[in-house]
């Protein structure tokens, strides 16, 4: 059986159930890299050029960990998933960049996803990818329909059951796919509700964000994430704030940020990667909106490989204190 390696990084969090279904339908075995470790991050960082962002360094670390484990590595080049919406250059060139910096990598299966070029080109691209496994176009068609259905189920599961991507993947594909959760001790009393916004590869990679969600939950908070919102909710917030999205995945930052800032919750925390151009522009839109509304506390955290745990912890503690003390004051005023 052909083994297809999928790095647990970048777009994995958005599309893993879809990719896995597609390859399994075509009779391949999917090998997933394990959760990010310091070793992966260091090995990835040692390969790329200096100004590469943290998520791409993590991605290369995952690819390196798969080198001897599979026959092919699947790295799509996602140019655009919506008309006239653009993706970061690092996503466009991901397969080529990986080939250049990891020459020992098994052959890379890539696919160009660009909806600007129309459906026909997209279908041709999918067929071209499927041809690695079968010459039967009908079989590829069936696999892609099943994959798309898996994707829709995945999205639905997250928005209707308020699940994070790791939780939804565990529910759909069984527990072996996600790292075991050590913390089952959810605090009974909910101190507040905190929304975290940003790209899933930052929000759910516990290594690079220093277990942010875990820390918030330990402090007794309910945590909301962008995936728990419906596409309509995300889009209407984007329309309100910037008119129309320019960047692919803008809904994870501007859409979710705009929505949560107006939904009467304790606070919103924006997570971004140091050196990410699109993030710095999008997060600023959210920051300005937070200042304009002046109702919901907002804080942004920038992650890079030198981010010390102490820095994250101190900021989180101060942010939560700010929310609790504000709440207490409001209660006092009411009484």
């Amino acid at each position, binding site marked *: 059986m052909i083994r297809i390696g999928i790095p647990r990084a970048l777009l994995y969090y958005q599309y893993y159930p879809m990719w896995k279904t597609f390859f399994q339908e075509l009779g391949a075995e999917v090998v997933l890299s394990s959760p990010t470790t310091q070793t992966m991050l260091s090995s990835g960082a040692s390969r790329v050029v200096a100004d590469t962002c943290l998520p791409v360094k993590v991605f290369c670390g995952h690819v390196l960990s798969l080198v001897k484990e599979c026959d092919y590595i699947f790295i799509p080049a996602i140019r655009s998933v919506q008309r006239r919406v653009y993706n970061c250059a690092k996503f466009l060139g991901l397969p080529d960049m990986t080939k250049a910096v990891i020459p020992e990598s098994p052959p890379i299966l890539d696919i160009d996803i660009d909806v600007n070029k129309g459906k026909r080109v997209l279908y041709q691209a999918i067929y071209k990818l499927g041809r690695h496994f079968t010459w039967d176009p009908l079989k590829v068609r069936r696999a892609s329909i099943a994959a798309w259905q898996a994707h829709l189920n995945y999205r639905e599961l997250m928005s209707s059951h308020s699940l994070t991507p790791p939780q939804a993947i565990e529910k759909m594909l069984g527990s072996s796919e996600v790292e075991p959760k050590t913390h089952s001790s959810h605090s009974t009393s909910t101190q507040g509700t905190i929304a975290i916004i940003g790209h899933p590869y930052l929000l759910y990679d516990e290594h690079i964000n220093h277990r942010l969600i875990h820390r918030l939950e330990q402090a007794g908070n309910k945590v909301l994430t962008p995936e728990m919102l419906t596409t309509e909710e995300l889009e209407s917030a984007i329309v309100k704030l910037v008119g129309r999205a320019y960047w692919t995945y803008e809904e994870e930052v501007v859409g979710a940020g705009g929505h949560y800032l107006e939904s009467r919750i304790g606070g919103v925390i924006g997570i971004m990667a140091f050196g990410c151009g699109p993030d710095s522009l999008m997060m600023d839109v959210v920051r300005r909106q937070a*200042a304009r509304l002046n109702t919901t506390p907002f804080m942004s955290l920038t992650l890079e490989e030198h981010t010390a745990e*102490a820095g994250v912890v101190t900021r989180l503690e101060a942010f939560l204190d700010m929310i609790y003390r504000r709440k207490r004051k409001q209660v006092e005023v009411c009484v």
Partner: protein
Amino acid sequence: MKTYLGIDVGSVTTKFAVLDENNELVTNIYLPTQGKPIEMVQQGLKQIKQQLSNGADICGVATTGSARYLAGVIVGADLVKNEITSQAVAALQYIPQVQTVIEIGGQDSKIIIIRDGIVTDFGMNTVCAAGTGSFLDHQALRLNMNIEELSRRALDSQTPVRIAGRCTVFAESDMVHKQQMGHRTEDILYGLCQALVRNYLNNVGMGKDIQPPIVFQGGVAFNQAIVKALREELNNEIIVPPHHEVMGAIGAALLVHEEMVNSQNGSKFKGFEVSEIKYHTSSFECKACPNLCEIAQLSINGQVLAQWGGRCDLWERSQSR
């Protein structure tokens, strides 16, 4: 007399403040940390014991600052609080109408925005320490003068020169260049102070709504040249409270006072005897997973008191005790 002790263990200095039941400052101590946080906490406790009258009873202890967890384990803290909350609470105690708190310490700097007595926004410097006390210290050392002299001479400047303050490395080469061009030392020094203030406002203060009254706290507030540069840059009065250098410790003491009154529990303070105990620190690499975390541990006579530094909860059991 019931008293409350706040300990602020920063990267450069360690501060202690004792408040009485009316939140009046009884005594305070300001020591250099010198990279020895445990010894300095012990030394500070020893000095406090000497300064306090016999009737004084410590009814609550809180720690803050970058070594707050370590110090908390050593003294048996009732409360471990982050620096931002502590600084804000202390500022509100002295200047209740405060809207902006500027705090510049040895290695980090903060801005806290307060409206109607509650914190609404804050910012902290990131990995870069340009724009903090160490930056000035370093330059003073290079010019072979102490920091008091730097402050005094900078105030004599007539026409300050422009120094690039974005990075200590650039600032230094800029200063050398200006020296070699024949500018007066005083003008270069004040230019340096202005650079620090600009750097602070552009980094930490970026996007923050700075409104008066503005309170300036932290060790760097001793430096009159920086106060002047801030006043000129912000075009507003800068209030330096009387005990600006120990505000973090005062805030911690205020918070633990409030906490102890609310909880009605007895203090977990281990007593002044901890200054005599020999603590032993060590570290090891955890091999439980590929992350290879560096675990630091604190022990007395081979008995482990606390362990931390891991990315998971495997070793941090003792902290919750």
